[in-house]
Each structure stands twice: as structure tokens, then as C-alpha cells.
């Protein structure tokens, strides 16, 4: 069968089955939410953002008013992490807004989607694997230096370099074993976070990225 011989049939194709009943049906369609992947990602992002604001607000509230405000630095740390997370969500939202240009040429739209999604995923990956150990160690140190049995500890001199700070911490620790456990656990959490985030990203976006790459390849392949 020749493709050209199908042109006439194509023009006569009966599409009544799909044709909406009328203006009302079209209007009802327009009131529904978009189910495109980008729209879904945006909705998920807003849910995450809302969840973050609620959880962090409660946690900050808790650390300010519990234990007679002894751990207010944890509240401050949570506030800083929350502020960074908000920046992180705003950046993700910006990338999602740039991700799709439905009125552009198909090829440029696919390339734009691919490059923006890769940026989005890289940003997600780097932010999470940096933030996890940073938050863990900062929170651990604050709790350690603020607990009453360690209240004799001198404030750290941060201008002596990282090695010097580590020596200062170890000198002030009454329980070396606890410190080693804390550090080992932190390293394990950091390594675990690295693999967990990689796995999660691959599950959530891996297939999409591969598919987009394949589509772009198909468009760009020169016979």
C-alpha cells in the first residue's frame, strides 16, 4: 500500500467518536487540570513546599519553646535550612516554567525539555547530597554543645582551619566513642543519601530523560 493512496481516505476519516458534544463539553474540559508531566511536577512541587513550610514551622516552634529554649540554635539551623529549601523550590519552579514551550517547533521544545530536566535533576541531586550531611553535622554539634553535661565546652574557634576545628571538637569531647559513632553515622548517612537520591532520581526521571534523548536523537539523525 502506498502512502499517497491514503491521502483521500485520511481526509475522510470519520472522527465522530471523539468529537465533543458541544461548547459545554469543551468548557468543562478547560476547567479540568492539566495532566501533562510538567503540570504534575509543578503540583507535586507545591505540595512539597506546603509540607516543608508546615513541618519546619512546627519544628522551629518546638525547638524555640521546648527545654526552656536551650536549643534555639537548632531552630535557627532549621530556619536556615528551610530558607535554603525555599530557594531550592523556587529555583525548581523556575526550571519547570521554562521546561515546556508547546507553541515552539517540536524539535526545539524537546531539546529544551531535555536540557531543563537535566538541570532540574542535577540541581535536585547536588542540593540533597550537600544538605543532608551539612544538616546532620550542624544539628549534632549544636545538640552536643548545648546539652548541660557538655556546657563546660568552649566555643569553637572557626578561624583555625577545618583540621584545627576537628581537633578542638575532639579535645572537648568527654566521650570519644560517642564522637566516633556520630561521625561514622554521619558518613554512612551521607553515603546512603548519595545512593538513595541517585536511585530516586533514576526512578522518577530516568525513563523520561532516556525517552527525551531518544526523541531528540530521532529528530536529529541525518540519514
Amino acid at each position, binding site marked *: 500500500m502506498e502512502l499517497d493512496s491514503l491521502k483521500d481516505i485520511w481526509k475522510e476519516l470519520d472522527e465522530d467518536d471523539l468529537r465533543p458534544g458541544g461548547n459545554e463539553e469543551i468548557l468543562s474540559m478547560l476547567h479540568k487540570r492539566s495532566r501533562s508531566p510538567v503540570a504534575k511536577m509543578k503540583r507535586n512541587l507545591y505540595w512539597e513546599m506546603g509540607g516543608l513550610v508546615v513541618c519546619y514551622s512546627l519544628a522551629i516552634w518546638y525547638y524555640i519553646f521546648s527545654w526552656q529554649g536551650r536549643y534555639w540554635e537548632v531552630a535557627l539551623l532549621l530556619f536556615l535550612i528551610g530558607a535554603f529549601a525555599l530557594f531550592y523550590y523556587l529555583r525548581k519552579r523556575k526550571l519547570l516554567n521554562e521546561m515546556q514551550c508547546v507553541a515552539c517547533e*517540536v524539535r526545539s521544545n524537546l531539546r529544551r525539555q531535555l536540557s531543563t530536566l537535566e538541570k532540574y535533576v542535577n540541581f535536585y541531586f547536588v542540593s540533597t547530597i550537600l544538605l543532608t550531611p551539612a544538616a546532620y553535622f550542624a544539628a549534632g554539634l549544636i545538640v552536643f554543645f548545648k546539652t548541660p553535661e557538655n556546657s563546660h565546652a568552649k566555643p569553637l574557634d572557626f578561624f583555625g582551619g577545618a583540621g584545627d576545628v576537628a581537633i578542638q571538637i575532639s579535645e572537648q569531647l568527654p566521650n570519644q566513642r560517642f564522637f566516633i559513632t556520630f561521625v561514622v553515622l554521619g558518613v554512612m548517612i551521607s553515603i546512603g543519601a548519595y545512593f538513595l537520591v541517585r536511585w530516586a532520581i533514576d526512578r522518577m526521571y530516568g525513563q523520561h530523560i532516556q525517552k527525551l534523548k531518544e526523541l531528540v536523537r530521532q529528530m536529529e539523525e541525518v540519514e
Partner: protein
Amino acid sequence: MLYKVCNLYCTTEHDKQDLFQEIVIQLWGAYPRFRGESKFSTWLYRIALNTAISDLRKQKRRIKTVTSEKLPTDLQDIQYSKDKEEKIQLMHRAIAQLTEIERAIVMLYLEDRSYDEMEDILGINQNNLRVKMNRIKEKLRKLTKSVEHGVG
């Protein structure tokens, strides 16, 4: 035209309705930004095809192509004197075996769009489009031939 895009990229009625709705929503959202820099039909095709091709949610289901061995036996026995309905069925089955990009090219070709407009819609240069078109024609010829003669 929107219905044809849905028919081309979806197999189930539910998916077709979903895609149709999504295209309508995208058209509605994009219309205020339409400045007339391209022809209205070009703009329409771009949105419909971008939505259909980029909608990766159901592609697992959609991509599932039908190999000629799996086609119903009555289709394999179609004679050259097949009627229109059979031809349409055959055409859809053959097109379903093409990639998303090839389907877009075939649709624009069947819609009698010029290569100039196809380039504007897809962003593939005309020379490349002509080469791709020839390859698709050959591919479809082989696919339909194997179906017609039961060669798998």
C-alpha cells in the same frame, strides 16, 4: 485535526479522550501568547504534536506496537480489493509501528502540509525531512506488504 493526532498517538478510547483534553487545555493556555508570527495552522499543529509527543505518561502503553505476526488473521488475508474500512485499519496498524517522530511526519504529509510548513512545525530541515519521508514510505510499504501477504 486534533482528533487525528489523538487517533495517531493513542490506542484506547480513554487515552484518546485524555490526550484530546490535554491538547485543548494547552491550546487555551497558549492562545493569549499567539502573536501571529506563524500561520495559525502551524501554531495548532505545533501544540497538538508537542503535547502528544512530550506526553510521556502513557507512552509505555502507546509505544506497544503490533507486530505483523500478532495481527488478526483476517487482516493478513486482506486482498488487494479491500474496502476503505480495511484500508484505514491497515493504515493505523502500520502507522502504529512507526516512532513518534515518524508518525508526526506521516500525519503532516497526509494532511497535505508543504515541506516548508513541516519544517516550521517540526524544526527538521527540508532535506532531512524528504529523506526521512522516503524512508518512512519504504518502511510503510514493507509493513503493509507483510501484513497483506502474511509475511512476518
